[in-house]
C-alpha cells in the first residue's frame, strides 16, 4: 500500500515538475509528453517494476507476496492481476456511471441548467472513454486473467511480469483522464476526430491522448500474453476441440487487441505529433487529411467493439450449458464463428463513415461486409437457443443474467442493421439512435455479459457465493431500468436528437425526463450489487470447489485457487460440455 502511494506520488511529482520546468523551454505540450514518459518509468520503478525486471534478467522466479497487500503491489500472480482488474473495472464503472448521472441530470429538461456546453462535452467525453475502458478490460482483463489460465490448466500466464505491467499502466491513464476537466476540458468526444483534436493548446486534450495511448499499450500486452498462454500452456489432452468457448472468445479478442490496437496507437501518436511537433498529418489547412484520421481510428475502433462483446458472448455461452445441463449446441461452429467475427471485424470500419464524404462506391462493400457479421453472430444465437432446447434449466443468478444479456443483445444487434444499411444510416448516423444501439450492445451486451461472468466465477475467485435473491433483484432492476432509459432514445434519435449536444427542443421534455428518471433504477441496481459483494465477502455461503457442478478445468482447482493453481497438473480426458452424456 505504501509502495503504491509512493509510486503514485513520485510519478505525479515528476510529471507536474517536469511539465512546469521544461514547459518554459519547450512549451507546455512537448514538456507534458516528455514528463509523462519519464514519470511513467519512475512510477513503475517505485512500484516494483524494476525489481521484477532485475529478477527476470537473473532468471529468478518472480517474488512471492501474501495477504491483502499484494493487491496493491506489482504482483505477478494471474489471479491477483485478475482481481486487480475487476476492482479497477468497478471503480472506473462507478466514475463513468457518475458522469452518466450528471449528463442525465442536465438532459432532464431542455435548456442548460447545471453545466456549460464545454462542461457537458467534458463530462460526456469522460463518460465515453471511461466506459470504453470498462468494456475493454472488464471481461478480458478481469475475468479473463483469472479464469483463462485455470480453464486451460496452466500454472499462470505465459508472461507474468508483462501481465502485471498491463494492469499497472491503467491507473496513470485514469488519473490523467480525471485531470482533464482541470486542464481546459475536452470538446471532442472519445473518438477525438481530427482536426478538432489537433487544434488548440489546452493540455486537457493532450492528457486524453496520453491516457488513451496508455490503455492501448496495456491492451496490446494483454493480447500477446493471452495468445502465448493459450497457444503454449494448455493442459495435456486439451486439443483445439476441447478448448472451452470462453477461452476461444478471449483468443478472438486478443487477436484484435494485437492487430488493431497498434493501428489506433500509431494514429494517436500522429495526433500527438501534430500537436507537439507541428507535423500536419490530419489538418487540411496545413496540407493534411481529415478523413485519414477517421480511417485509421475506425480500422481499430470498430474491431475494438468486438474486444468488448466477444468475451461477453464467450461468457454467456460458457454459462448457459452449465445451467441448462446440456452440451453447448453447435460448439465447433460457435468457436469458428467467434474467429469469423474477428476476421470480418477488420473489413467493416467504414460503416462509421457513410456520411463522411469518402468515395461513394465504397459504401456498398462496407455495407455488405457489415451485414455479413450478422451471420456468425446469428450462430452465437443459434448456440444459445439450441442449448436451451430440451434442456433442464436451473435458473440460478448467472443463468438469469445470461438470458437478460441475450435479450438485450438481440435488440442491440437488430438495431445495428439499419445503421449498417447505408440509406437508413444517412438519417440515423450521429443521432441518439446510434447512442441507444451501442448502449444495447455495450451495456446490454458487454456489461450484462460481465455480470454473468462475475456471478458465475465469483465463488471460484472468493470461495464464497453471492446471494442469489439479491443478484436476481439487481438483474431485474438493471434490466428494467436500462431498457426504460434507452428504448426512448431510439425514438428521440430519429426525431432529430443529435449526439453530443447538451440542449434540445422543448417538445422532447417529457421523453427526456422519463429517461432521466429511469436512470435512478439503474443506479439502484448498482447499489444492490455493491451491497451484495460486501455482504457475501463476510457472510456469504461457502462455495466449495464446484458449486455449479461444471465440467471445465477451473472448477477442479480449490476455491480460491492457491498459487500455482493445481496441486498436480490436470489432464483433459473429455470435452468441456459433456453434461448429461453417459461416460
Amino acid at each position, binding site marked *: 500500500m505504501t509502495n503504491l502511494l509512493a509510486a503514485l506520488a513520485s510519478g505525479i511529482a515528476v510529471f507536474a515538475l517536469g511539465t512546469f520546468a521544461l514547459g518554459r523551454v519547450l512549451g507546455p505540450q512537448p514538456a507534458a509528453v516528455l514528463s509523462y514518459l519519464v514519470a511513467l518509468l519512475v512510477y513503475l520503478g517505485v512500484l516494483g517494476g524494476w525489481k521484477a525486471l532485475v529478477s527476470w534478467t537473473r532468471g529468478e522466479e518472480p517474488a512471492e507476496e501474501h495477504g491483502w497487500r499484494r493487491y496493491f503491489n506489482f504482483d505477478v500472480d494471474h489471479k491477483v492481476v485478475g482481481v486487480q482488474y475487476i476492482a479497477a473495472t468497478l471503480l472506473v464503472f462507478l466514475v463513468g456511471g457518475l458522469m452518466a448521472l450528471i449528463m442525465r441530470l442536465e438532459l432532464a429538461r431542455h435548456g442548460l441548467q447545471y453545466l456549460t456546453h464545454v462542461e457537458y462535452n467534458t463530462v460526456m467525453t469522460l463518460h465515453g472513454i471511461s466506459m470504453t475502458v470498462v468494456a475493454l478490460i472488464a471481461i478480458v482483463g478481469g475475468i479473463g486473467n483469472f479464469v483463462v489460465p485455470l480453464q486451460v490448466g496452466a500454472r499462470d500466464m505465459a508472461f507474468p511480469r508483462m501481465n502485471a505491467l498491463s494492469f499497472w499502466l491503467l491507473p496513470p491513464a485514469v488519473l490523467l483522464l480525471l485531470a482533464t476537466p482541470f486542464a481546459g476540458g475536452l470538446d471532442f468526444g472519445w473518438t477525438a476526430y481530427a482536426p*478538432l483534436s489537433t487544434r488548440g493548446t489546452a493540455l486537457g486534450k493532450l492528457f486524453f491522448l496520453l491516457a488513451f495511448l496508455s490503455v492501448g499499450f496495456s491492451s496490446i500486452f494483454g493480447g500477446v500474453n493471452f495468445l502465448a498462454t493459450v497457444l503454449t500452456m494448455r493442459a495435456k489432452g486439451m486439443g483445439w476441440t476441447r478448448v472451452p468457448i470462453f477461452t476461444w472468445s478471449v483468443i478472438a479478442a486478443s487477436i484484435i487487441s494485437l492487430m488493431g490496437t497498434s493501428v489506433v496507437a500509431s494514429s494517436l501518436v500522429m495526433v500527438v505529433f501534430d500537436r507537439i511537433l507541428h507535423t500536419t498529418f490530419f489538418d487540411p489547412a496545413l496540407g493534411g487529411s481529415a478523413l485519414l484520421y477517421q480511417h485509421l481510428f475506425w480500422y481499430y475502433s470498430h474491431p475494438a467493439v468486438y474486444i468488448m462483446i466477444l468475451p461477453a458472448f464467450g461468457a454467456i455461452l460458457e454459462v448457459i450449458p452449465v445451467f441448462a445441463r446440456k452440451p453447448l449446441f453447435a460448439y465447433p461452429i460457435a468457436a469458428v464463428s467467434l474467429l469469423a467475427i474477428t476476421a470480418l471485424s477488420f473489413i467493416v470500419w467504414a460503416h462509421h463513415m457513410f456520411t463522411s464524404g469518402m468515395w461513394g462506391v465504397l459504401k456498398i462493400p462496407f455495407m455488405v461486409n457489415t451485414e455479413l457479421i450478422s451471420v456468425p453472430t446469428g450462430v452465437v444465437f443459434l448456440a444459445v437457443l439450441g442449448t436451451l432446447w430440451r434442456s433442464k434449466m436451473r435458473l440460478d443468478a448467472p443463468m438469469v443474467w445470461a438470458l437478460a444479456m441475450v435479450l438485450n443483445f438481440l435488440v442491440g444487434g437488430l438495431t445495428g*442493421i439499419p445503421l449498417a444499411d447505408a440509406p*437508413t444510416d444517412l438519417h440515423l448516423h450521429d443521432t441518439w439512435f446510434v447512442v441507444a444501439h451501442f448502449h444495447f450492445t455495450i451495456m446490454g451486451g458487454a456489461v450484462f455479459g460481465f455480470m454473468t461472468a462475475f456471478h458465475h466465477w465469483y465463488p471460484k475467485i472468493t470461495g464464497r457465493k453471492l446471494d442469489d435473491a439479491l443478484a436476481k433483484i439487481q438483474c431485474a432492476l438493471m434490466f428494467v431500468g436500462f431498457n426504460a432509459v434507452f428504448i426512448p432514445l431510439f425514438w428521440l434519435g430519429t426525431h432529430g436528437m443529435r449526439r453530443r449536444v447538451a440542449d434540445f427542443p422543448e417538445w422532447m421534455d417529457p421523453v427526456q425526463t422519463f429517461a432521466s428518471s429511469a436512470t435512478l433504477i439503474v443506479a439502484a441496481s448498482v447499489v444492490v450489487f455493491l451491497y451484495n459483494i460486501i455482504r457475501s465477502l463476510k457472510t456469504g455461503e461457502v462455495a466449495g470447489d464446484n458449486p455449479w457442478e461444471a465440467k471445465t478445468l477451473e472448477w477442479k482447482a480449490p476455491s480460491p485457487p492457491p498459487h500455482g493453481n493445481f496441486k498436480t497438473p490436470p489432464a483433459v480426458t473429455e470435452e468441456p460440455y459433456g*453434461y448429461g452424456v453417459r461416460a
Partner: protein
Amino acid sequence: MKNKSVIPFVAVAAALITWAYHAVFGRWPMMPAAASAEAAFVDSAWNGLFAIETAIYGLVVGFILYCLVAFRAKSRDEQGDASDRSRGRLVEAGWILASTILTLALAAFGAKELRAVVGGTHADHDVEVRASQFSWEIYYPKYNQYGSKLFLEEGKRHRIILTSKDVVHSFWVPEFRLKQDAVPGKVIHLMLTPTVKGEYTLLCSELCGADHTTMTSLVEVLDHEAFEEQMKAEF
C-alpha cells in the same frame, strides 16, 4: 408441455410481440414527417428493415419464453437431452444458409435504395453551404446572395455544395433524411429535392467543438414565385 406445442406457442408469441411493436410505433411513428423526395427511399428502406426485425425479435423471444416454460429442471439431479446436439447438423446448416441469404438480400435491397437516394448529378439549383465553428453560411451563386438561412425551392433538385472552414461538421435536416459531413479540404456534393413547403431546422450533427449544440440554422422551402422573390430581396 410437449415439444410439439413449440410451433403454435412461438407463432402466437411472435405475432403478439410484433403486433405490439407495430401498434406502439403506429401511434408514435418512428420517423418524423418526410419532406423530400430522398426521404421516401430512406423510409421505404427503414420500413422493410423494421418489419423483418420485429418479426425476428418476436420469434427469438417467443422461443426463449417457450424454453423457460417447458424446460425447467424440477430437481437439481436432472440433466438435459444431450443427444440433441448430435442431431443438430441440419439445423446448423439451415440456419447459416438462411441467415446468409437474408443478409445478402437485405444488403442488395439497401444498395438499390442507396442508388435511388443518391440519384443522378442533374440539378436545378446550386447552393453553397459553408460550415464553420459554429455557424452556417449559405451562398446562392446564381443570384449572388449570402445569408445564414437556407432557402430551397419546392420540387426542384438542389446541389448542396458543402465545405468547411475549420473542422468536420455535418449537414442534417431530419425531415429530409439526409446527412452529409462538411470536411475541411474537401468539396462535397449532396443532392436534395425538398417536396413539402414549410420551415425546418438545419442541425450540425458532427461534434465540432465547445458550442456544437448551438450550431443550427433555419431552412425554408418555398414555392417557385416565393423563392424567386426571396432571391431578389435584400437578405
